[in-house]
């Protein structure tokens, strides 16, 4: 009963976030400077904020963000990172769809979800130098120009 009350309090504290079908995921962790760029606007990348297809998640020198997607893919970025959610389509009945993301710079940690499990070609991660095919897995990416 006590735990039920805690749950209720927490849920109320975080307020209402509409879990609409077009939402790709939700921010679960956020530190330092972090923003979402969505159709020319900048939104704070706070815990509870939804992430949509087309969003670009940007962190500053002290920033990091962790996102849980609808297919249970877990994606996080470290400081000075730019991650574009190019495409996210997920059918919760068949588990078919596509997840394309691009890390333009910085660091990325991924635990792939139901999309990659259903089809080995469903998830693709791009960097300026490479394209990654995800075969149901946990992996890390760092991309950026070489330092002298």
């Amino acid at each position: 009963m006590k735990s039920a009350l805690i749950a209720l309090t927490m849920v109320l504290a975080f307020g209402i976030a509409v879990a609409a079908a077009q939402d790709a995921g939700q921010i679960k962790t956020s530190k330092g400077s972090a923003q979402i760029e969505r159709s020319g606007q900048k939104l704070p990348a706070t815990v509870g904020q939804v992430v949509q297809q087309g969003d670009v998640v940007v962190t500053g020198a002290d920033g990091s963000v962790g996102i849980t997607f609808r297919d249970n893919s877990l994606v996080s970025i470290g400081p000075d990172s730019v991650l574009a959610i190019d495409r996210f389509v997920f059918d919760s009945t068949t588990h078919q769809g596509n997840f394309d993301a691009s890390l333009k710079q910085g660091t990325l940690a991924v635990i792939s979800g139901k999309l990659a499990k259903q089809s080995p070609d469903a998830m693709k991660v791009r960097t300026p130098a490479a394209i990654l095919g995800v075969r149901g897995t946990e992996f890390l990416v760092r991309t950026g120009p070489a330092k002298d």
Partner: protein
Amino acid sequence: MSARARPKTDPRPVRTRHLGRLALLALILLAGCASRNDLYVLLPGKDGKTGALVVESGGKKQTLDTPYAAARVKNVGSVDGLKSSEAEVKQDFGPALEAQPKRPVSFYLYFQRDTDEFAPESKALVNQIFAEIARRPAPEVAIIGHTDRVGSMQYNDVLSLRRAERCRDELIKLGIPKVRISVAGRGAREPEVQTADQVSEPRNRRVEINVR
């Protein structure tokens, strides 16, 4: 005499010759000095299974399929395999790893045959589900219905969704706002126990409560 004549026999204009030397210089520089600092690392899976990651750059491919297998891309088109380690990974990717969301957890409620009625032992699970929700930032609940293989695909898709909706209604009654909950019906696509078609299997008549 012949030494002076030789340059005149080179048909290229002076500027082209300079460009040729510049291109050669650029190639030497590129070969010796990296233009990128890219690193790709495959981690061991938490469930003991390690997947695979295919790294492709400028037509060159490398498949990483063992724990901490890594690839370095210094220039587009060059993929060098290497081995990383738990310690190196922490150093290279610490903040990104610390920012990873908690892994989703699933609970299973079971149903009586061809109904959306809970099996009695399932009711006790509800408190555990609440506790899990309380542990998480911005919690969401995905309710996913499953059936056994008795009945047609369409029938089971509808039945599985009905079971998920029944669960959602119960959880809402217990205090979780509707907006945090999504429902899905997977029909008979994801059995807990593999069976032949039209086999009644209580372990497959279930609803998964995925808390994330």
